[in-house]
Structure formats: C-alpha cells, structure tokens
C-alpha cells in the first residue's frame, strides 16, 4: 500500500472500528430482543432478570394466529386430547383455540394496500417524472415544489377533511381508499426521485430512437424505462416501505376490512394480560421483510431518504 497523508493510521482505524461496532451492537439489541421475545414462552418473556438464554417456544406465534379462551375442566373433557401441535401448545398454557385470529387478514391488507399503492404510484410517478425531466412543462419549478410541499403537512391535519371526503364517497375503511391515499402521499417522493434518475439518462439515446422512427411513447418504454429500471425498482421499494409502515392515516381511516398491520399489532392482547411473545411475533413477521429490503436498497438509501437531494 502506498503512503498517503489522508489514509488513517492503523490505530485510528482500530479505534474507529471498535466504537462503531459498539454502537451497532447497542442499536441492534432492541431488534434482536423483539425477535427473541417472539420465540419465548409467556413466563420467560417477563422474567427478571431478562432472560438472555431460554428454551425456544412457538407459543408467541401460535397465540398470534389464533383466538383462545381459558380452558375449563368440562371444556377439556368434551374437546378430547389435542389434535395438532399448535393445539398442544395452546393446551400447555391452559387455553383452548377457538378460531383463527385477525392477524392474517390484517397482514394481507398490508400486502394488498402496500403493493397496490406502490404499483399505482410508480405508474403515475414515472410518467410525471419523465415529463418533468424531458419536456418544457409550464410552471415546472412551481409544480415540482408544490409536489414536494405536500409532504410537509402533518398527516393528522389533512386527515380531518380526508375523513369527511372518504365518508361522503364511501371510501372509508376500503382498500381502494387507502391505496389512493398512499399513492398520493408517495407521489411526491417518487416524482422527485425518478426525475433524478431519468435526468441521468443521456437524452441522446431517445433522440437516436426518435430519428429511427420511434414515437415518443415507444422511445419512452423501449429506451428510457429499461435504462431507468434500477432507479424505478429502488423508488418502488421506498414507496412500499412507506405504505407498509404508515400508521396515522391507517388508524384514523380504517377499523375493520381494510385495517393494516401497524394499527393492529399494538392491540394484540392475550388471555389475561398483555401477551408480549405474540406482540413480538407479530412485530417480527412485520419488520423482517423491511430489513431485507433495507439490505437490497443500501446503495440508494441515501438518495431515497433525502428526496434525491443527496446523490451517491
């Protein structure tokens, strides 16, 4: 290695490394704790001192997906011996399963609304971003700023009239309503990000295509779209993460059919007291996909969180 005055010394590197790794371990511990608690039994989860080493149990996951009730003696007699492994786990806690919980449905809602709004947002966002990037749109800068400023409003403040509007249109607590809402909220991010990505594609490619007799539309989807694919993909993941995580609108505008997981998870309670393993199990299933996405996105993360203001 050649000598350089800007290259930190070995000792500096070691020291920096130790400090950063120390911080990383502290910062990751609550997440590990969530995942670990999901695999604990009820008593283990509330033991003092907190149990670092424990016997793994699927109690949390079984409780998450089922409704149970405290078993009485004659209930156990009529029901007979437990039929399945999850029946067994419920019986071990002194409860019987009465049916599936609503978690599955709420999780499915999160998937439908998340992917639905992302798809719609990408469709509208890509088109708008392309127009802003390539054409002379009247009042372009004002429109772009207007799009950005919609993100500054506190969700609760906009929620009042949206609540009224949705009630009049019959969109309250529907998938369509939530998809439209999340699309609108995400459009600002996607237009700004995608415009940046499309700006980076040399305009000469399209000009060549136009000279070869392509129409604008053809040039758009045969030349620009493939080139912007990475940018579109990472923008889509950002939109998905937002819709996936959103809570304020979800808790105010949905209560049943279209309720997503974030407002539901905190309401999970067990038979007699808060069932922390079940909450942790629900949170784990919900959070882990986002962690995977974060790893996929890490190259574009900075750009996404700053609306394309910082590119690298």
């Amino acid at each position, binding site marked *: 290695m050649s000598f350089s005055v800007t290259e930190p010394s070995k000792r500096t590197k070691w020291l920096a490394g130790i400090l950063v790794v120390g911080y990383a371990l502290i910062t990751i511990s609550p997440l590990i704790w969530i995942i670990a608690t999901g695999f604990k039994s009820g008593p283990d989860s509330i033991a003092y001192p907190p149990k670092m080493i424990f016997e793994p149990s699927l109690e949390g996951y079984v409780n998450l997906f089922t409704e149970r009730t405290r078993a009485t003696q004659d209930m156990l007699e009529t029901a007979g011996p437990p039929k399945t492994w999850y029946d067994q786990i419920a019986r071990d806690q002194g409860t019987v399963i009465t049916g599936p919980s609503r978690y599955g449905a709420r999780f499915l809602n999160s998937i439908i609304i998340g992917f639905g709004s992302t798809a719609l947002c990408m469709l*509208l966002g890509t088109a708008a971003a392309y127009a802003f990037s390539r054409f002379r749109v009247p009042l372009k800068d004002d429109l772009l700023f207007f799009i950005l400023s919609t993100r500054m409003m506190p969700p609760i403040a906009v929620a*009042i009239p949206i609540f009224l509007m949705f009630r009049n249109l019959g969109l309250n607590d529907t998938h369509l309503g939530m998809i439209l809402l999340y699309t609108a909220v995400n459009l600002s991010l996607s237009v700004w990000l995608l415009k940046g990505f499309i700006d980076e594609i040399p305009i000469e490619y399209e000009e060549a295509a136009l000279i070869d007799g392509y129409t604008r539309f053809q040039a758009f989807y045969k030349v620009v779209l493939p080139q912007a694919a990475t940018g579109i993909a990472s923008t889509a993941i950002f939109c998905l993460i937002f819709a996936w995580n959103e809570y304020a609108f979800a808790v105010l505008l949905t209560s049943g059919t279209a309720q997503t997981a974030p407002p539901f998870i905190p309401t999970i309670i067990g038979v007699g007291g808060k069932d922390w393993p079940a909450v942790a199990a629900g949170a784990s299933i919900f959070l882990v996909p986002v962690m995977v996405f974060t790893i996929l996105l890490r190259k574009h993360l*900075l750009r996404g969180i700053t609306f394309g203001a910082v590119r690298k």
Partner: protein
Amino acid sequence: MIDTSIDKAAKATPVGLARRIRGLSDRTIAWIFVAPTIFLLLAVNIFPLIWTIRLSFTDFRVNRPNRVVEWVGLRNYERILSDPDIWATMQATAHFLIWTIVLQVLIGFALAFLINKKFKGNDLWTTIIVFPMTLSPAVVGNFWTFLYQPQIGLFNYAVTFFTGADPASFSMIGDVHLAPWAIVIADTWMWTPFVMLICLAGLRSIPDSIYEAAECDRASKWRQFWTITVPMVLPFLMLAVLFRGIENFKMFDLVVQLTGGGPGNTTTLTSIDLKREAFEKWRTGYSSAYAVILFVTVFGLASIYVKALNKVKER
C-alpha cells in the same frame, strides 16, 4: 434550399397522417403524463387543505351532522392561541424537537466521522446501524413500551447494569420527568442513522487533495477538522436537520404508541393533541383551525431555514 425527395414526401403528407406517424405531439404527451399526478395531489392534498381552511372558521362538529353550522370568524384561532394547554403542547414539541436534533446531529456526525476512517467491514456495520430507520414507527414504539417496563424491561435492566439503580425504582414512560426523555431516546435510536448517512455523504464528497494541501501547509489535524471538515459537511448537516425538523414536528406514530401523550400531558406533542381534538372530542372546526396554525408554522419555519441553507451552500 434543395428539394430532396424526402422533403417532397413530407410536404405531401397531410398533417393528420404525419401526426399519426410521429405519434402525439410532445406537448400533449407532457400533459397526459403530468395530469394524473397533479389531479390526484389536488384531490388528496389541496382540496382537503382548502376544506380545512373553510372549516376552521366554523363551529362544525362531525359527530353532530344535523346541527346548524355557524360561521364564527376568527374565534377558533383566538381560542387556540390564548389556550395555555396548547402552549404547553408546543413546549413539549419544542423539547422533543430540539433534543432529538441535538443528539442525532452529535451522534450521527460522530458515527459518520468514524465510519469514514474506512476500517475493515465498515459497509456491513453501516447497514446494521441503518436498520431502525426503515422500520414501522408505530410497531417499534409499541415494542419500546416493553423495553421500558420497570423491572422486566431490557432498558431498565441495562441502566441497572451500568449504574446499579434498582430496575423497579423508575419507569421511563410512567414518570412525568422521565417520559419526555423516553421519547427522545427512542426517536434518537431510530433516526440517528438518517443524520449519519447524510453526514457520511458529505464527508465522502470532500476531495483528498484539500487535506493533502493542508498537510503540506502543516495545518494540525485539529485545525483541518475545524477549517475543512466541518464547513464542507455543514450544508449536508443542515439538510439533515431540515428533514428531521419537519418529520419530528409532525411526529405522531412513534410517540402515540410509546406514551400515548402521557403521563398527564407531558409528552402530548401537537399532532397527538390535534388527533384528540379532531377524532376524540370531534371539535372539527376548532381542530381545523389548529391544523392551519400547524401548517403555517411548518411552512414558515421551513422556508426561513431553506433560505439560511442556501446562503451556507453559496459560500
């Protein structure tokens, strides 16, 4: 000009046909592409905003649709601005806003500075540090109540481990003095990586040649830090503060799940208070005025700040 056969063919083609061959005009396409986005934003953002402003001058209540709605002029605004409870809420918000920004800037910058020392495996550890930022604040906030449990919580256990205090003797979210700090800690845990990432981009944008030149001039490392590193990272840092400022001014999900605004009103941030007025007390007109005041505050503060940011950038 020489008439080539192509030109002749072009002139002979009727306009309509030519357009069909070339497709729609750019202007039309631009409108087709932009219109849906603008329409949706108008419908979901601007229309509600105008509606909010209109409602803010009335005493409308959503839960009593048959009552005659009266026009009350500026009375809602007067009542809000003279209400000591709302000023207390604003103070809670300011406490939260200032401390989260201070802590996140200090820790975030320090981390970025250390990561920029390019030790082995810094990419992996950066990704791990970034995790909390992309998670659902409501779900995370809900789980932090578990970490903050007296006696059994991991946080109290860690404090006991380092200070020897009895883990059952304090409750982060039950104590009026500790709760405002409980939300600051959780938010800092979640959003420090955001500031870190932006600072890191700033640090990486500084060319090595500047440091080399400084080294030739025998500037000390300390001096290099204050005259090169800090001024060059400053615009990035200010951008990070802008984003965090806006986000934390709007803060709702994390805190509402963590403390629900309690104990008492110690962690009732403006968004939480607004939610209570609008969706629990159903004072729609009053809360609309409240919402308008919040808009104006965010936009006002943000635009002053952006002006300052641009000045720093120009330097």
